[in-house]
């Protein structure tokens, strides 16, 4: 197993009386990790702690084995893209990214080429000589990502990189981020929009009220919540008959009929899938489709941040 990139130990951050992050102990390896949580949950604070922009009020946070707040050489290996997008708007995209690459330690002679390469990766080659103040939201996000990338950091920390961008730009940015992960970068992406994270990665950490409420693979987390009713939607030729076949099972909590489908709510999804398969084979049902509406971040997030989830998490 590779060495962890980020290690937080009992890390807390307060802004005066306001709690940002509370007693987080968290280890992060490589790949793309989605930080998920509602507004004000502490995602940005955690990202700023990782970037070296904030010093923990208590505890420690290490990135690549060093303290990012103290050690500029650690920060050199980090690319941080803040949530806000106002910068030096009178500069062109090329000038801005060049200046930021230069600030990140790329020598003056190499900074323009590094900036152009990063802008090209982000698809900004056609607009990089225009002033940033004329850019659309999507172009600003891409320029920020290019600035994050230009000095070739190992760890990219992207705070809400998809906020406000149109669907086409969003899809393109998601593709770029995934490609960067494939190129060997470790990427932390935050969002409060669930499907954005879901499109990027299956590895998530759910942040809520300054704490890591859950972490790991989306589906693993989903399995951990075994008491949370799991819905399975089955489309078949005789949904009522299928409902009748499963109605007596003790793990089935509720069955809802739709026009050409049956939605089964169960507490034991694995057992339910087995029994569904048996019923299908025994009674010759024609299966047209089977989906699990709960196997998405929305359901996990809703459950974890709801009262039941909190009660469960505290057990």
């Amino acid at each position, binding site marked *: 197993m590779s060495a962890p990139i980020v290690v937080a130990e009992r890390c807390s951050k307060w*802004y005066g009386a306001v709690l940002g992050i509370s007693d987080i102990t968290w280890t992060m390896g490589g790949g793309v990790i989605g930080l998920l949580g509602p507004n*004000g949950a502490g995602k*940005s604070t955690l990202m*700023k702690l990782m*970037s*070296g*922009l*904030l*010093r923990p009020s208590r505890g420690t946070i290490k990135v690549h084995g060093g303290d990012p*707040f103290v050690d*500029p*050489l650690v*920060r*050199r290996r*980090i690319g*941080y893209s*803040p*949530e*806000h997008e*106002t*910068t*030096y708007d*009178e*500069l062109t995209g090329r000038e801005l990214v060049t*200046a*930021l690459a*230069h*600030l*990140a*330690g*790329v*020598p*003056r002679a*190499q900074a323009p080429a*590094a900036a152009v*390469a990063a802008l090209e*990766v982000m698809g900004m080659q056609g607009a990089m000589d225009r002033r940033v103040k004329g850019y659309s939201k999507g172009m600003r996000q891409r320029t920020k990502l290019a*600035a994050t990338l*230009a*000095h*070739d950091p190992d760890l990219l*920390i992207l*705070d809400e990189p998809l906020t406000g961008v149109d669907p086409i730009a969003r899809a393109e940015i998601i*593709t*770029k981020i*995934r*490609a*960067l992960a*494939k*190129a*060997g970068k470790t990427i932390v992406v935050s969002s409060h929009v669930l499907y954005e994270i879901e499109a990027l990665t299956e590895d998530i950490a759910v942040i809520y009220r300054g704490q890591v409420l859950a972490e790991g693979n989306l589906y693993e987390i989903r399995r951990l919540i075994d008491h949370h009713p799991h819905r399975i939607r089955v489309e078949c030729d005789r949904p009522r008959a299928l409902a009748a076949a499963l109605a007596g099972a003790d793990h089935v909590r509720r069955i809802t009929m739709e026009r050409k489908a049956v939605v089964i709510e169960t507490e034991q999804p694995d057992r339910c899938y087995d029994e569904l398969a048996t019923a299908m084979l025994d009674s010759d049902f024609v299966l047209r489709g089977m989906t699990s509406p709960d196997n998405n971040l929305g359901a996990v997030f809703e459950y974890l941040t709801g009262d039941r989830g909190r009660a469960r998490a505290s057990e």
Partner: protein
Amino acid sequence: MTQPTEAAPPVKKGVIHDIGYARYAGERRAPSTLWRVIMRHQIAHAWKTWWRWKPAIIGAVITTVVCGVIMYVSADSRISGLTRAGGPLAFIDGTLAYSFGFYNKFAFLMTMTVGAAVVARDQETGAFAFYFSRPVRARDYVIGKVAGMVVVMGTILLAGPLLLAAFRIGMAGDTKTMIDLLPWLGRALTVGLLASLAYATLPLALSALVGKRTISLAVWAAYYVMGTSLLSVVGMLTWRPLAAIDPANAVVSLAFGLWDIDMPGRDKNALVGVAPAAISLAAQSLIAVGLLYNRVSRQAAGAVGASS
């Protein structure tokens, strides 16, 4: 004997396009040199538009040319022979000291178009997040911004006086006079550097303290135009060195004191001595740098950025 198993069909994996990302493999600057990057950016930012640096530069150039012409014309015997109250009117030697009054005005213009908004702008726009998430430290930022502003101010307050001093030396009729006039370069350098430092650091510190561009500009303008004038008046009425808190007065006093010139139209009572003027400019600059560093390092260690 085991039978060869049939090869399993390849699992279809998700396709991610190779975007040709090439890692940057070149050398990296040492973090201790990043203040130079910030300084250069500060200078480039000031030069970027027509209204920031260029009007003040034009004003300084006009001042230098006019003063040069006055010095040249004053070398004529019909002018140099003029007297007042029995003493010679030393236009040729007094013009340089006198010119600082004009350079002051263009320096103030520069503080209004660049200096007083610099740090506040970075705070407002969240640019600190871009600086301090990179290997930049608070001291690199402060040194870079101060150095950049000193260079910018130096083009107004240092370059012109040095040119005039060189011009005056060049006008000397013989080698001995030329050698006697060489200290002019040192005097111009001293006044110019101290003035540049004060005009660079004071608005930067105020900008960092206020944190809002428009308010910062208003407070600086009010302080410079009214506050320091008030202090000058109080100083004249009570304890004269107090008037040295006014940077414009301190610069002019230092210049007139170093050249020891009595010019017509100049109220000697308004001037403070060389030592109070020099100490005031140096002390105000040091305090301003201290305040600036304190504010920036607190910002760098606190809630950086425009977002929560």
